[in-house]
């Protein structure tokens, strides 16, 4: 009787049932779409973090650059500018300055690296040098009287930059190469510690037509490419990797050499639960350093990935809640209105011996089925919404750890400094997808059942309160 009655009611009141189901479907579809988009953004963030962080790295330690240091211009070029102004270098002289500069971070000493590796719960700590190779070429122009040196002076020179990581050749993890895969040639070996060999990122190698066996100039030294490496999609790896010892030998911070120094320490903790404790220890050990874990890094992610995450977290969430509340409210109101229209029907059933419980069950059953139909339609809508995001969503960018431009970047040096700064910034482009997860579908089912039950509860409550005498009272 239950199913017969339920089927007949739904068929008879099909328009109302469809209306309620569509309302629920819209809310549930939106929840799935937003949940999927949020998952997609999380995946994008994870991809960004994964590439920037590397597998097996729990924490990174960096030192903020000293005020005025790392202005982005090579020390050699600065000297040459002085010489031009003092007349020591004549107009028409060709300049080709190539330096390997530490522009992004302050330096950390070998002693500090050793101290980090000795900390409790630290299983591995490796130092690396993230550097920028800057080449400035051009011909010194004639300086006219009263010229402040900007304008035609800066336009007389061109610069090119690429990023170089000095890595520990004896240990790839933790470190910049921990998530890299060799696609051609070979990886570094112990014997490469002080050799002029380099690994090229596959993207950079393609762009610059580099192959194994090619040579590149790094800090005025020729390096032979011995391998091409690829890191996970969506990452922003350095263009070249060279042995740490060579980076320390060639690199400078301004005029200062980097011998025995690193500027990034990659740390692995013995367990995920101990990461906060290790972070605390390292912060105490190196008060001026920045100790970053994955969550810190995530908070530093800016750009459209961050905007999308914020949009999904805030607007999307509240929009979903609002539509769901509206859909639930609509379902409840329509169900209660339907019960009100069926007063005589329910009164009659009570008069002929139906218990309130049976009538409430009937009303709830009808609402539940409508809710489930709405849920199924909602899942379909959600998949549709997710597919639309997959198809039309623009690529998202993530900018991580961009150093602020030092105040010294002005006048003649500003243009070049900006180029250097942008070379040091980690900008990653990822394609936003909206994967519909099983948990999102389960959430939809739960919401559909909840919506149906909620509407049914209110409707059933109203039906239960009906006096059976209402059936006869309607007649008198």
């Amino acid at each position: 009787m239950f199913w017969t009655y339920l089927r007949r009611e739904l068929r008879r009141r099909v328009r109302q049932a469809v209306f309620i189901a569509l309302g629920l479907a819209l809310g549930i579809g939106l929840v799935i779409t937003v949940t999927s988009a949020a998952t997609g953004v999380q995946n994008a963030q994870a991809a960004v973090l994964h590439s920037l962080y590397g597998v097996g790295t729990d924490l990174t330690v960096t030192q903020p650059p000293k005020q005025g240091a790392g202005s982005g211009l090579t020390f050699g070029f600065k000297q040459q500018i002085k010489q031009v102004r003092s007349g020591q270098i004549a107009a028409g002289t060709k300049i080709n300055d190539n330096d390997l500069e530490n522009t992004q971070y302050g330096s950390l000493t070998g002693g500090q690296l050793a101290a980090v590796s000795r900390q409790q719960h630290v299983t591995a700590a490796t130092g690396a040098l993230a550097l920028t190779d800057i080449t400035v070429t051009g011909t010194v122009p004639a300086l006219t009287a009263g010229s402040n040196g900007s304008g035609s002076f800066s336009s007389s020179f061109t610069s090119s930059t690429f990023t170089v990581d000095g890595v520990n050749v004896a240990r790839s993890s933790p470190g910049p190469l921990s998530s890299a895969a060799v696609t051609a040639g070979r990886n570094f070996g112990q014997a490469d510690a002080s050799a002029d060999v380099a690994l090229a990122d596959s993207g950079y190698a393609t762009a610059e037509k580099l192959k194994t066996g090619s040579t590149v100039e790094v800090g005025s030294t020729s390096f032979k490419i011995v391998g091409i490496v690829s890191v996970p999609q969506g990452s922003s790896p350095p263009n070249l990797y060279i042995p740490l010892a060579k980076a320390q030998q060639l690199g400078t911070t301004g005029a200062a050499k980097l011998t025995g120094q690193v500027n990034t320490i990659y740390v692995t903790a013995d367990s995920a639960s101990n990461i906060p404790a290790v972070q605390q220890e390292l912060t105490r050990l190196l008060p001026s350093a920045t100790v970053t874990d994955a969550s810190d890094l995530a908070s530093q992610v800016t750009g459209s990935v961050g905007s999308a995450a914020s949009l999904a977290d805030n607007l999307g969430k509240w929009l979903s809640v609002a539509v769901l509340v509206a859909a639930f409210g609509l379902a409840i109101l329509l169900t209660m209105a339907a019960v009100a229209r069926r007063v005589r029907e329910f009164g009659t059933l009570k008069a002929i011996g139906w218990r309130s419980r049976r009538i409430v069950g009937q009303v709830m059953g009808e609402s539940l089925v409508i809710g489930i139909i709405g849920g199924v339609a909602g899942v379909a809508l959600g998949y549709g919404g997710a597919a639309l995001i997959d198809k039309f969503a623009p690529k998202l960018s993530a900018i991580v750890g961009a150093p602020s431009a030092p105040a010294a970047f002005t006048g003649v040096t500003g243009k070049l400094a900006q180029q250097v700064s942008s070379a040091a910034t980690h900008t990653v482009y990822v394609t936003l997808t909206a994967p519909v997860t099983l948990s999102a579908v389960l959430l939809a089912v739960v919401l559909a059942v909840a919506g149906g039950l909620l509407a049914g509860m209110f409707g059933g409550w109203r039906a239960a309160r009906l006096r059976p005498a209402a059936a006869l009272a309607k007649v008198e």
Partner: protein
Amino acid sequence: MYRLSGVTKEYSHGTVLALRGVDLEVPDGGWLAVRGPTGHGKSTLLQLMGGLDRPTSGTVELDGRDLGRLSDTAVTRVRADLIGFVFQAFNLIPTLTAVENVETALAPLGIRGAQRRRRAAEALAAVGLADRVHHLPSELSGGQQQRVAIARAMVKQPAVLLADEPTGNLDEDTRDDIIALLEGVWREQHLTMVVVTHDSVVAARAQRTGLMREGQLTLAARTSQDVQAVLPWTDAAGQTGN
């Protein structure tokens, strides 16, 4: 057997007195028609006799059970087992077919599936609607709908049939058919039947009539001659009618 003693019913916190001390006995198998102007308590009386409402004071006993004091569950069970209702507006479920409407009376008794369907079809056949079992109420005439309602009331073989203006919405010919049908089931099933009606023709077919005026019931001395033979009537005072 129905026994009503000093039954009163107030509405709106005592401002409306629908019944004022009604005393009545209806023997098993008796047929009482209650007449009276609209709004004088006829339907209220029927509601109390059917356990649809509780008296403000007094007792309404059916076979020794005080319907006013039974729990909701128990009185619902009494309605399901013992009492059949027929309403003026038929009160069929518009979304269910004729046979499904009749089945609704068997559902609370726990009768399942095929047996329920078979009994419902038989009940419809008994009221002359064997060829209308799968019709919706909207596809039936008023008389046919009332026949479905009577089949629904009778399918569980109740001890009591309470009918509230069963011919109120019907034309004369159909009314006569329905009266004949009710009288037939009353005779065949030895029912106790209480019919509230405005129609003197309907009332004239009853064993005994009562007049409800301003909440008070007065049993008339006259009873229908042709139904008298079925069962001698005894009123509350123990006097045989006629």
